[in-house]
């Protein structure tokens, strides 16, 4: 569980740095939406944040890290899941980072409800898939 604790601590430090440094919530949903308003200078920080986020993978490999990505190859499932995640995080104004880490850390009732809801929805989805023969 050491990797999980260290990784989580790094995420917490990253979110703290962004908040104490420039007063922004490190929410990936907001970062993604910023891609569509690149002329809005007040959101340019998100593009720099995204650049750093993308660079993490090659840096991790350079440091000798291994990072398996095991997932379904079912295209229909991938598209359906992507659409749901994109649509859902937009109207719910956040995902695992903005609601799950920052919102919970701020003790926001709204974020706590959102976090509990998406975890329960995820648990139910996995349970249904695994008990119906499983597409994965």
């Amino acid at each position, binding site marked *: 569980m050491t990797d999980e604790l260290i990784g989580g601590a790094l995420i917490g430090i990253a979110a703290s740095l962004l908040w104490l*440094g420039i007063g922004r919530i490190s929410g990936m949903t907001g970062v993604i939406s910023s891609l569509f308003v690149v002329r809005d200078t007040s959101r340019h920080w998100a593009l720099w944040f995204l650049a750093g986020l993308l660079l993490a993978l090659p840096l991790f490999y350079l440091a000798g890290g291994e990072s398996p990505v095991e997932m379904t190859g079912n295209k229909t499932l991938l598209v359906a899941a992507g659409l749901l995640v994109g649509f859902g995080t937009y109207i719910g104004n956040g995902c695992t980072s903005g609601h799950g880490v920052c919102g919970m850390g701020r003790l926001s009732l709204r974020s706590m409800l959102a976090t509990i809801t998406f975890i329960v929805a995820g648990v139910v989805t996995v349970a249904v898939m695994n008990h119906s023969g499983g597409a994965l």
Partner: protein
Amino acid sequence: MTGKMSRAGIPVAFVSGVLFGLGLLISGMNNPAKVRAFLDLFGNWRPELIAVMGSAVVIFALAFQLSKKRRQPLCADAFHEPTLKKTDARLLTGAVMFGVGWGLVGLCPGPALVNILNLNPDVLLFIAALLVGNRLAHYLVGPVKAAK
């Protein structure tokens, strides 16, 4: 005046992105199979990922408390705390849709972005659909109206 960031804010945002990404990679949050095993509460449940959210939340909570004693961040003119407070059907509908999509494949937005440079076509397809979903919601539903 909001949104003003000093030049030093750029490296702050960049470094924060790198650290965030490394955190996702080290913890294994970017591996969909591990995430789905975490969500598999009624099967072969792997609870380790709780530690990721747990440690991240505690550290951010401390930073957030610390920020209450400051008028502004180090490299910008204001703290942009989210103003939405409503716990309404829109929030819950969005969270349910997100949770279902998350469970189907095991990817949420951050890990999907972190995985981009692997150039795995399945991850790229997921991200393309995610971007389409984001824009569909933007044009069909629109942003939350600023409410008092």
